[in-house]
């Protein structure tokens, strides 16, 4: 349909456009947009170009399209491999989280495949942190014959596709989609759990109340608490809601609550000034590490030095390229994963990740790594084989997940409830001399 000639013809057109000066007369074009574009021209010219690009692209890449891992792992896996799907933001503003998860998934899948008990074929699609794209990505995954999935990286896409996984009865465990809406159909009442959607990370409410209780028990960190959260973010406002509720119940003194949005996530002078003026000696930051790094820098700039306390989103602070770790000195966080943990499992993972991608893995990556191992363990224990139907596989996996205990890089002896929520112990860590130290 689209042959080489058409391709060449498009290229001609593009090249031609660079030499059109002699056609230039006056450019007093009116602002009115009256010119009607002839759609036939568009069809013949533009669409041909678009189609040609598309087809050419598809044609040249169709060979390597199916397996997203390197050819070695998908190549010799053949029909004996489980199709593991998943989606996350690989483009756009949230791409950093999706990329971390994708990288870790590739490492884990390669390791599991090399170990030999269970073979995976990874199919990870881009959803640009958009529920709409996540649903189309789900369509792609389903077309590719996915048998189980790591759901999505972020919460709102997860909430959009979870009911689809439920409908098609495909097992899914999200590494980092921490909102309740990922596992419950009715998140506000915590009812109607999907049953086949699980979480590797803590739910947001869980983190909020755990933080409040920790601060109550450790009054030496600070008693006058300020909260700065990101109001248009699921994760952050989810934690903030339960933190505030729990704090009221157990009598924490919250002196200031400030927020920011995606559109105003650069300047924190107002929030910090007001927290300082309110006399806060502890600032709770239920946010991700990139805005947190700006908050730390700006607080330092204005000579404000309270204790900063955050949740798992803060992990990654130390690995920010170019970040002055002295600024993070004395920052506390409740996180299930720390890249400096001395155990072999963590060290092996961190080293591999660093070697391959030149960065220290954050908790997103760690949770994703655990997802693959947890699924592998469940498949092995349940004696599942790749030729089983998805219904059978889902049955086995759900049964295994609700009964097994799993040890991973984000915690020891994790268990899952039937609702899909994970139980693992969050660790409090404090940054001392640029490394994490366990805090009591």
């Amino acid at each position: 349909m689209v042959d080489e000639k058409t391709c060449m013809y498009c290229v001609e057109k593009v090249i031609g456009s660079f030499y059109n000066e002699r056609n230039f007369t006056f450019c007093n074009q009116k602002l009115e947009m009256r010119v009607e574009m002839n759609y036939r021209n568009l069809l013949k010219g533009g669409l041909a170009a678009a189609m040609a690009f598309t087809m050419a692209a598809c044609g040249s890449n169709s060979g390597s399209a199916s397996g997203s891992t390197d050819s070695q792992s998908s190549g010799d896996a053949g029909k004996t491999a489980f199709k593991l799907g998943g989606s996350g933001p690989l483009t756009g503003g949230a791409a950093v989280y999706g990329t971390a998860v994708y990288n870790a998934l590739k490492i884990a899948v390669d390791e599991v495949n090399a170990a030999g008990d269970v073979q995976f074929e990874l199919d990870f699609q881009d959803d640009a942190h958009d529920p709409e794209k996540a649903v189309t990505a789900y369509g792609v995954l389903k077309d590719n014959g996915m048998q189980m999935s790591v759901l999505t990286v972020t919460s709102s896409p997860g909430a959009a596709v979870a009911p689809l996984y439920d409908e098609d009865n495909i097992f899914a465990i999200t590494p980092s989609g921490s909102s309740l809406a990922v596992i419950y159909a009715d998140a506000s009442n915590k009812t109607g759990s999907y049953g086949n959607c699980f979480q590797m990370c803590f739910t947001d409410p869980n983190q909020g109340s755990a933080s409040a209780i920790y601060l109550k028990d450790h009054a030496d960190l600070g008693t006058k608490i300020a909260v700065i959260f990101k109001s248009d973010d699921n994760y952050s406002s989810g934690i903030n809601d339960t933190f505030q509720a729990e704090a009221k119940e157990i009598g924490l003194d919250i002196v200031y609550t400030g927020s920011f949005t995606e559109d105003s996530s650069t300047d924190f002078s107002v929030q910090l000034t007001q927290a300082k003026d309110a006399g806060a000696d502890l600032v709770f930051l239920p946010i991700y590490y990139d805005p947190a790094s700006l908050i730390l820098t700006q607080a330092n700039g204005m000579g404000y030095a309270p204790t900063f306390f955050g949740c798992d989103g803060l992990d990654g602070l130390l690995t920010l390229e170019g970040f002055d770790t002295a600024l993070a000195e004395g920052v506390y966080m409740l996180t299930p994963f720390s890249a400096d943990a001395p155990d072999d499992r963590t060290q092996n993972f961190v080293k591999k990740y660093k070697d391959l991608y030149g960065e220290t893995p954050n908790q997103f990556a760690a949770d994703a790594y655990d997802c693959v191992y947890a699924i592998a363990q469940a498949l092995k224990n349940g004696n599942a084989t790749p030729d089983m139907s998805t219904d059978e596989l889902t049955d086995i996996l759900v049964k295994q997940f609700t009964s097994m205990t799993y040890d991973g890089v984000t915690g020891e002896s994790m268990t899952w409830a039937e609702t899909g929520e994970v139980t693992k112990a969050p660790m409090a860590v404090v940054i001392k001399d640029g490394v994490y130290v366990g805090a009591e």
Partner: protein
Amino acid sequence: MMKNFISKLFDQKLRSRTISYLLVIIAFIILQIMSSTGGLSSLLKSLLVPVCCYTVAAIGLNLNVGFSGELNLGQAGFMSVGAFTGICVSGVLASSITNPLLRLIIAIVAGALIAAAMGYIIGIPVLKLQGDYLAIVTLAFGQIIKSLITNMYLGFDENGLHMSFVENKVSLGAGGKMLLQGPMGATGTQRIATFTIGVILILCALTIVYNLIYSKSGRAIMGCRDNRIAAESIGINVANTKMLAFIISASLAGAAGALYGLNYSTLVPNKFDFNTSILILVFVVLGGLGNMTGTIISTTILMLLPELLRSLQDYRMLIYAVVLIVIMLVTNNAFLQTKAAKLRESLIKGKKGAKQS
């Protein structure tokens, strides 16, 4: 008689209309057949409804940009209003109206009406401005709508609706349901949108827009666009005329939004940001200003393109950007177009020559 009717459908005056309707109907029939025989991939199935939604919103925007000549950068804001209205209406009526189709239609109508009302309120200040100032004010309204919905909490229980703003103070009785939860938007929405309704919505949008532009008010709209002063001098009320186009555009976006909102189990207010407005604008401009058939085609192609490019993995959006630029260059450059026409001629001649010899 019959022949007369058909030839009338394809004469100069009605041709573009007929082509638009035929295109939509034929596409619908083909897709329905494919879907019933199982030949439709899950990917395409998941794209059907959103394509319909964006098409309707883009048809509305084309009325605004193409016919009325107002650059509107806030179309997503109206979609947002329609979407969350639709979700709330559907959520509230879930127990009283069990027929999903009826509920969907009521939600779409409600979305369209509320968006039209917003269009009216916003139109009063917006249409006093011109050119890029008008564009920036529509952009500003889009941002304000987003920001307001991000801070809105709405719940529903047997005592009726409960609303709070900025902070979540809604406490619901037993069996209550949160409809809007600030930044989390709506979760757990029943997915009642269907492709058939989407296609019907497109056809309705086309009917409304075509009837408008071929009517007296339509000519007035174009008159105001081409020369406001001349239009004023022959007694056209420019403010009212532009307002009409603006409201219809907004209500189409609202209807599209309602359908969109009810197609997903979750919707966050951030979805309808500046980028979505721009996306719809891209559909309109690529399809051709004032050309509804073009809008339908370009929306479909541009929605499909990123999906077809999935195999390129990392380079997908890069290629998408390049394609966008190249299409704009190819379709808008006079030099390129003449060059292309010549090339095409010589190709055809070449083929004929080859056949003869």
